[in-house]
């Protein structure tokens, strides 16, 4: 795994390595968020997912989120890894690690990071249901784009 704080990977995310990237002596807290593939969404069963990314832009957006976090919560350190390709139920799709001197900033910054990812990072999820497939077009999962 690379030493970069922000990565898009095609292999399983190594969460301990992500945590290592933000571990530092001045930190007294590290929070992690792990987003996994859910089997059931509103009564519909997912068989597997496919993620696609505009990789260079997605990395730039991760870096921008890192800068925003640094402005709101100074002295935090953030690492984000998102997986693309085919993911099965319970696979880790995204992992975020944030370290800070005290726990409050690490919790808040971590939640901020996942919300921003869902708003603006160019990554798309295609749901493969038991009876069809759809690209998901927004984070409320109410709009989808038919093939």
């Amino acid at each position, binding site marked *: 795994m690379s030493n970069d704080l922000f990565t898009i990977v095609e292999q399983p995310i190594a969460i301990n390595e992500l945590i290592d990237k933000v571990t530092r002596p001045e930190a007294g807290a590290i929070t992690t968020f792990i987003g996994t593939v859910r089997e059931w969404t509103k009564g519909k069963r997912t068989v597997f997912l496919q993620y696609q990314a*505009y990789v260079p832009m997605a990395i*730039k957006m991760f870096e921008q989120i890192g800068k925003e976090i640094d402005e709101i919560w100074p002295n935090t350190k953030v690492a984000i890894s998102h997986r693309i390709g085919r993911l099965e139920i319970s696979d880790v799709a995204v992992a975020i690690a944030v370290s800070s001197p005290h726990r409050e900033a690490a919790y808040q910054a971590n939640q901020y990071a996942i919300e921003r990812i869902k708003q603006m990072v160019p*990554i798309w999820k295609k749901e493969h249901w038991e009876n069809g497939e759809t690209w998901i077009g927004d984070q409320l999962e109410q709009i989808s784009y038919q093939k």
Partner: protein
Amino acid sequence: MKVLLFAHLQEQLGVSELELNWESQTVESFKKSFQHTYPIAQLDNVMVAINEAFALEQDLIQKDDTVAFIPPVSGG
């Protein structure tokens, strides 16, 4: 200009990338021209990125830019 397509747009057109020899123009005009030229259902909620940065409707696309259509994202 190079045009990048993702998600359902990529499937609708059957390609992930196009090379267009179009004149430089605004994002707004580019989206209209693109919709007239290619069999795309709609681009209403689709953002445009120029050289890996989100662009506004009035921003200018130059001939050697990379333009990406960014449908509403669904990562995480």
